């Protein structure tokens, strides 16, 4: 949302920088899934809430992994908007909030998570292909592989749930009015 064009021009130059990206990505994913879980809980969609909490937990492990990889390194302190993600202004999980729905089903939740992971794959792939630093390239490729694995896991998980019917978001009741 800046006035600059959306295409990603910046090349990630150091592994520290890439780790900072990776950390931000995972941390934001944790935050996002927790937020979504809270939303579902508030809206009495407990099944999906539990699923999101679970996803948050998993992402939390990824944060730990990155932290471990970053041990002893001095990562740059970038603010949210100083990250230069691929094609859009937010991190791969950034858009998920908009896709929430109070009647969403586990299938949707995983779809949403999968979408994020796929975007992460795309991002790291881009980093790998544009990298000039060999270390960065290598790390990015590892990350691609890791995220691809996540996508695959999610796909398996999703199969356990039926695909929602077309009118899954139907609610005959009117919205509650407040103030």
């Amino acid at each position, binding site marked *: 949302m800046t006035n600059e064009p959306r295409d990603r021009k910046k090349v990630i130059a150091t592994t520290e920088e890439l780790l900072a990206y990776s950390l931000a990505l995972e941390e934001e994913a944790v935050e996002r899934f927790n937020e979504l879980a809270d939303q579902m809980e508030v*809206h009495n*969609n407990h099944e999906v809430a539990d699923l999101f909490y679970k996803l948050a937990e998993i992402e939390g492990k990824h944060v730990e992994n990155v932290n471990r990889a970053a041990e002893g390194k001095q990562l740059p302190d970038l603010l949210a908007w100083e990250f230069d993600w691929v094609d859009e202004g937010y991190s791969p999980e950034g858009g998920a909030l908009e896709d929430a729905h109070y009647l969403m089903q586990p299938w949707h939740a995983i779809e949403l998570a999968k979408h994020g992971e796929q975007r992460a794959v795309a991002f790291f792939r881009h980093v790998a292909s544009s990298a000039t630093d060999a270390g960065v390239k290598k790390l990015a490729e590892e990350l691609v592989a890791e995220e691809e694995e996540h996508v695959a896991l999610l796909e398996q998980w999703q199969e356990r749930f039926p695909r929602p019917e077309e*009118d899954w978001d139907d609610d005959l009741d009117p919205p*509650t009015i407040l103030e």
Partner: protein
Amino acid sequence: MSRQSLSIALSGSGGSGVMTTGSMLLEAAGKAGWYGIMTRSAGPQIRGGEAAALIRVSDQPLESHDDSFDLVLAIDPASLGRFMGEIPLREDSVIICDMAGGRRDASLPETLAREIDLPMKKMAKAVKGGRPNMIALGVLARVIGLPEGSIGGILEKVLRAKGADALEASQACVKEGYAAGAELPAFSGPPITDVPDGERWSITGNEAAGLGAVRGGVRFVAAYPITPATEVLEWLAGSLPKLGGVLVQAEDELASINQIIGASFGGKPSLTATSGPGLALMTESIGLAVCSEVPVVVLDVMRCGPSTGIATKNEQSDLNIALNGLHGDAPHLVLAPTSLSDCIFTTQWAVHLAEAMQTAAIVLSDQSLGQTRAIVDKPADIAFIAKRNVPEVVGETYRRYAIGDSPVSPMTIPGQPGGQYTADGLEHTEAGAPSSLYDDHLAQLDKRSNKITNFNFGEHWADIDGTGDTMVITWGSACGPVREALSRLRAQGTEVRMLAIRLLAPERPEDMRAALEGVKRVLLVEQSHSKQFYRYLRAAYDLPAEVKLFHRPGPLAFKPGEIIEQLSDWCGSEKL
């Protein structure tokens, strides 16, 4: 009049559709010849929150919930906790609930009631596109004794838009539920009678107020949305254009009230509807209507205050501001419906009175009256309509604020030649020219006050009922439970009088004296923390020496049994 009734609470959450289910059940009950009421309660979420439909059906007209509920159906157990304060249960009450696995769900609140597990989700899953709430509908219809056919037409009406598949799925679920209901304990519902088509109405108090307004002649409405008045406006927005009228959604309440003053100045009976915060914004200009003698009606559907308070819950705490919230000496009318269907009459009468006296009328409805849906007898169509004193021909020297034989002076309407004048919120002479003299001020204050205190209001100022030397005085939505309490007492042979005040201002000292003739003890019932009704009565009337006050703030509704308990000192021991 002994009443056989059944009270049912239906709760759910996360978009489980309990409101729709409840409405359908109520309508089915109505079709079957029963009377009924349904109120809603909901959590703070706009979508997907906990929701409960509280339903009561009977062979007699109803105006109140019962002391306790016979049957609760919880589509999911967790939804119930929030509402337990509003759903008192007995030992012989029954909770039907989906325990999802047979074991008692920990989230189900502890109660005395008997719990029955019914796997509604599973049953619904068995039907393609099926939903647990439709299972519930079938179950409920069966256990309260509605004929299976009573649901069909309603399903069709509600689900037509959703397509044939959805309809079929629902029908199948209802059938499933109905069958399952046969296994459950049955309740002996009120006797089913035959009612001729169309003799019963299904209506909310908010719709009733809208209907009263247009029956009274209102053709211009300007308003700003606010809970719980919005449904009045929604109904009027749809209905006014049919009658050549219009509703304008204004930018705020200051605009609403001034727009209706302008339209009424132009000759169109006009109304606005709002709730406490909006009423507060309007008081300056309600004073303008009073001073310039332009008739307007302001409907306040009360909610819990102060400030934003609790917007979706009932309270009777705008009495103070309605009676005394205008600056200066600004006599005006304040009315309150004494029942849900009386919202028609009282609003209509208010329009009539405002027009007849060329002043402002505030009608105090409340969230409970306004948002309850009831099956009622078709209301009478009464004769009160707006009739303003407009001179046929205008003489040489028309004086808008003339003090003649009647304090209501003829009012010309723009377009009438020779009738031009300037309506004014400044103090003025009879001709309408600004004046700061004591004599003019006194004369106009007298005029504006006399016209409303001298008016012949007839018998409508209050609903008076019963005999005996004990009386309950109350108003608004508190009337319903009081009325039921007294009818229960009557059934036991105890007579208690009831006075439900419809016209709160101006005061009617003589009528009150007559009503209190022979009364030794008075119980006042009101839903306000600061005893607003009590203070009002003290200021306005001479009450008997023995006065007892039963008051509490919203949102907990009064129950008939509580009223009886309050009277027990007097009626229990002495058996009056």
